[in-house]
């Protein structure tokens, strides 16, 4: 009876400790991080890497898209003679990302102040423009302030959102298109208003009545 009681308690204790330690271990696990993140500059903490890795792994599972992140402190000597565009293409191939047309890679070199997103051939020009817009407007401002992990996090997050969309001319330019439509409507409204006002179809509330004025000087 007593041994049964201790056995039960041991099982409960085991389950309890397993419940606590397994998630912590999972959080600290780095065994799969190297699949997606190549942080040669060591600017990301383990926690950052875990969060980003989970996102990239989920993208692979959900959409079968491989998105890799490569961070250099400075461009390696072997690649010094290449421009960054060539380097990113070479790395893209070296990492085997060219095997499928919907893969992509974010590559950056901290000290060289270079960053690129290399997209597979599946993605049209509007994806590239949208991604470049994110880098320019959202990521680079953080990098300028040396907030690298924040900038990288934003980049990964927003780029994933974009590649999940069906990007085309109208989607890329939707803000401009909507803005233009609004401006056109506004101008049309003004023109119609002026036209109606001139043709007296709209009467000012304070423009009622009529009469005549004279003087007996």
């Amino acid at each position, binding site marked *: 009876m007593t041994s049964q009681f201790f056995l039960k308690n041991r099982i409960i204790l085991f389950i309890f400790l397993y419940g606590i330690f397994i998630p912590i271990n999972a959080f600290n696990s780095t065994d799969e991080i190297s699949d997606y993140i190549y942080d040669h500059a060591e600017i990301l903490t383990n926690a950052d890497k875990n969060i980003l890795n989970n996102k990239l792994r989920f993208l692979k599972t959900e959409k079968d898209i491989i998105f890799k992140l490569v961070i250099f402190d400075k461009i390696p000597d072997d690649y010094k003679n290449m421009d960054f565009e060539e380097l990113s293409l070479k790395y893209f191939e070296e990492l085997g990302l060219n095997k499928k047309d919907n893969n992509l890679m974010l590559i950056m070199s901290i000290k060289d102040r270079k960053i690129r997103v290399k997209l597979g051939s599946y993605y049209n020009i509007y994806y590239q423009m949208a991604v470049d817009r994110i880098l320019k407007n959202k990521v680079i401002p953080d990098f300028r302030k040396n907030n690298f992990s924040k900038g990288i996090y934003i980049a990964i997050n927003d780029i994933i959102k974009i590649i999940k969309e069906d990007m085309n001319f109208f989607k890329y330019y939707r803000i401009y298109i909507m803005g233009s439509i609004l401006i056109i409507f506004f101008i049309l409204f003004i023109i119609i208003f002026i036209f109606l006002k001139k043709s007296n179809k709209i009467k000012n509330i*304070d423009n*009622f*009545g*009529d*009469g*005549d*004025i*004279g*003087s*007996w*000087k």
Partner: protein
Amino acid sequence: MDIINNTNEILNPNELKLIIETIKNIEIKTTGKIRVYVGKKIRGEPMSFARNIFKQFGLNRLVDKNGVLFIITVKDKKLIVFGDDGINSKVDKTFWINVKNALITKFKNGQFFTGLMGGINLVGEKLMEFFMRDFEDLSGVNNDDKSIFFEE
């Protein structure tokens, strides 16, 4: 003609009483309203000035939009005859010119009472032509003597 400094100098009490009675008689028979404003000077653009006074009298709130306002300003010797959209849809511009001329002809000779009575009667005729009140309907008829206002 003598210079008039005070607005209440243009009419004596008997004349004033007769004008008020005349306006009241018109208002009993018609849905229109007539108001007379005697001031010192027209301030700003004349028609805007007239519209402001018109609104102060509440003439713009009439259902048939048939209020009529006479503005007489004694220092700059000016006169405005102003009617709302309702009466304007029934008369043309020449009507107001005729009313104004009828008043000015008399005012030049200092005959304010005669001129004003003539103008009020001309307007009254038009109101009776187009805006006769229904039998036994006396709604909106004022019993006060505020149909004429003197600026102090």
